[in-house]
């Protein structure tokens, strides 16, 4: 197995104008991923029970459209045509690769492309014991999230061409105003894959992506049993007395 060579830190453009999506492993200046694993061709080949929702966190769409109408003072010329031309590949890379005794290879793949089958997500939420939420709301929430990071397990059986078993085993998402604030919601990992550092990877990738885009206020609301988990990742409860309050309708 080849060992991956250390990669140079991706160039970060002035993030207020143009956030840099760079979570994949890159070769120098070209956008080639070191491990040319392309989930999409495999998705097309593999048979799926449901067509499902194909949702993509719309980074580029939200930036391509114009700013406020009466922006007389500062006209920002977004290099939209250039970015459109080199629309980056979905940011995904292999976190872990295991070779099983029978020759099957299981790859744990991280992706920030936000491709989530909504039914897979629903069943993952069931597995961790979360109450069910309406699918349409879930779909809307994913679509309008600033970033959706996923972890999939892909199992390639020896000798079977293109018949990979792919399943969603982890997800985390963040909403943001793209400038100052972000809130991390819905972090979950399949119970049979917990304890391997996948949750940690998901959250760390989100934090890294947010900080690189100069979004500094990263908040989340943790259940009591996961407060320690987030503390280990660098989160502080009620820092300087800042608390989250929730709205309760009074009838």
């Amino acid at each position: 197995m080849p060992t991956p060579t250390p990669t140079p830190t991706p160039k970060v453009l002035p993030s207020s104008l143009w956030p840099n999506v760079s979570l994949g492993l890159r070769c120098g200046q070209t956008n080639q991923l070191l491990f040319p694993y392309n989930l999409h061709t495999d998705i097309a080949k593999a048979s799926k029970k449901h067509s499902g929702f194909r949702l993509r966190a719309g980074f580029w769409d939200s930036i391509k459209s114009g700013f406020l109408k009466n922006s007389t003072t500062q006209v920002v010329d977004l290099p939209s045509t250039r970015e459109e031309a080199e629309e980056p590949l979905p940011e995904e890379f292999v976190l872990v690769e295991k070779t099983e005794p029978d020759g099957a290879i299981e790859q744990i793949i991280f992706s920030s492309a936000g491709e989530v089958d909504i039914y897979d997500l629903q069943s993952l939420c069931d597995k961790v014991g979360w109450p069910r939420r309406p699918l349409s709301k879930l779909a809307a929430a994913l679509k309008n999230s600033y970033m959706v990071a996923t972890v999939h397990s892909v199992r390639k059986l020896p000798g079977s061409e293109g018949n990979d078993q792919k399943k969603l085993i982890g997800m985390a998402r963040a909403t943001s105003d793209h400038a100052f604030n972000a809130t991390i919601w819905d972090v979950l990992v399949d119970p049979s894959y917990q304890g391997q550092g996948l949750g940690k990877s998901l959250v760390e990738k989100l934090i890294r992506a947010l900080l690189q885009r100069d979004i500094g206020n990263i908040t989340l609301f943790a259940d009591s049993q996961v407060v320690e988990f987030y503390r280990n990742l660098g989160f502080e409860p009620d820092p300087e007395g800042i608390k989250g309050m929730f709205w309760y309708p009074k009838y």
Partner: protein
Amino acid sequence: MELKWVTRPKTQKPKSLSPSQPPLPIFISTKPSHINPDELRRLYGVCNLSGHRFPTQADEFLDVGKLRVALYHSSFVVSVFCKSRDMISASEESSSSSSIGMWDLLQKVVKPVTPQNGELVGFGRAVSDLGLTASIYDVMVAPPLRGMGIGKMIVQRIIRMLTRRDIYDIAALCSENERPFFEACGFGDDILGSTTMMYTRTVSASTNGNQMAKRFGRKLLFVPALKKQRFTNQ
């Protein structure tokens, strides 16, 4: 979007003393296009707010470019305007006469306050995934006009827009001194007992020098490194 009238609640003085101030006309809007980013930046400054949750003591320079981006990506924004003249009279402690002259009244009716002729005096915004959750940020009212119910009006307008889209999970991050305001608007601690946490990890002097960190106000935040791939053979 509409014209409203706000008043200061009557003070607890004996009846013989100063009468209450005349009602103040304001214009409340939910249209992002009514907001001039430069005026908004000025309002942030006047209210001593910057984008950072942990600002430095000195005047934080709020980047107008970043503010535009934040505005554009806020799902809902509320802005409140009033005429400069009215704002000056409202900030005066003692009003010379409680009655509104005919000319003033005529002015208010014939030339009501609009986003174009008024000054931005109040603001609030919310970021939402338009499905499940929403967070309210940066609710502010210019100091001379506080205590008149404008802030509460802003929050209630935001809530109305959210509940209309069937979003009821509405959060607001606030510091100790902002709590009473949000409590008055109907906010409380999470009934599910969740803990609010913010990312505050900073670089430590002891570990290796190759750590990447970024400054946000007072905090120098540590940026987690990209981890390399692991290969295992079972």
